[in-house]
């Protein structure tokens, strides 16, 4: 990284704003992850980090690299896209595992219409009654 000194002040400000935005959102997400009480609530906190948390830092990195290397550097956008496209797999896996367990235990915090899905005799032998799109 040689040409850092050539970055004009207005671009530095834009990059700094994106970096601070991304890292702040990631921090808030982590803070929420720590503080929230229920499993399903905790599913929501990291999505701050995976949306604009990642997005802000990736945009800042792309802007800085593009200026320094004097050509558009779009690697970071591919990273952002890959994160957005793969996060649902993890979160759905966690959510469905939790739902399955709650159904087995007849957890009180599940609404009754969700409990019923697995008490249907047709499906209980096969375990989870549903198929997801993944």
């Amino acid at each position: 990284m040689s040409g850092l000194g050539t970055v004009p002040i207005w671009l530095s400000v834009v990059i700094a704003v994106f970096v601070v935005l991304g890292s702040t959102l990631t921090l808030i997400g982590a803070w929420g992850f720590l503080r929230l009480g229920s499993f399903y609530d905790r599913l929501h906190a990291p999505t701050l980090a995976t949306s604009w948390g990642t997005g802000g830092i990736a945009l800042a990195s792309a802007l800085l690299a593009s200026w320094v290397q004097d050509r558009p550097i779009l690697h970071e956008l591919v990273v952002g896209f890959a994160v957005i496209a793969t996060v649902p797999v993890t979160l759905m896996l966690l959510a469905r595992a939790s739902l399955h367990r709650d159904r087995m235990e007849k957890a009180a915090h599940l609404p009754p219409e969700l409990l019923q899905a697995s008490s249907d005799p047709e499906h209980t032998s096969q375990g989870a009654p549903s198929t997801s799109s993944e």
Partner: protein
Amino acid sequence: MIARLLPHPLLVLVLAGMWMVLTRFSLGNLMLGLGLAVFASWTMHALQPERVPTRSLRMLPRLAWTLFVDIIRSNIAVARLLLTEGSGCRRSSFLLIPVELRSPTGLAVLAIILTATPGTAWVEYVSETGTLVLHVFDGAESEHYLHVVNNVYVPMLQEIFE
């Protein structure tokens, strides 16, 4: 013949485009990228023989823009809720939404949309009844999400995939 050689033309284009974005533009890179993309599309064909039907891609920019705006808005909303956690009266809730969308690819894209948007988490989809179960971080927004899924995203995805 063309269909046998190029089972997923759109995938080839996108992958080759991505290769060009990641490398410096040159004829060699273009050929290497195209070769890799075609090879990847054969692999994709082996994994999933049927082509993903796309009826119309005209809706795609509007979908991307709607999602972009939605993600910004819900980032702000969820960040505020997390910072005021404990003092407010936020109650999360489960939301059952009957969706008309049946295309597996469309549903996969809907899953990405809803997960990428903070505040909604995809819990399950019951294919027999077409019911989608979401977990909503702020239960007071349930009506809003019901409207957004059924009146905004599902019609767009139906236009693209069905």
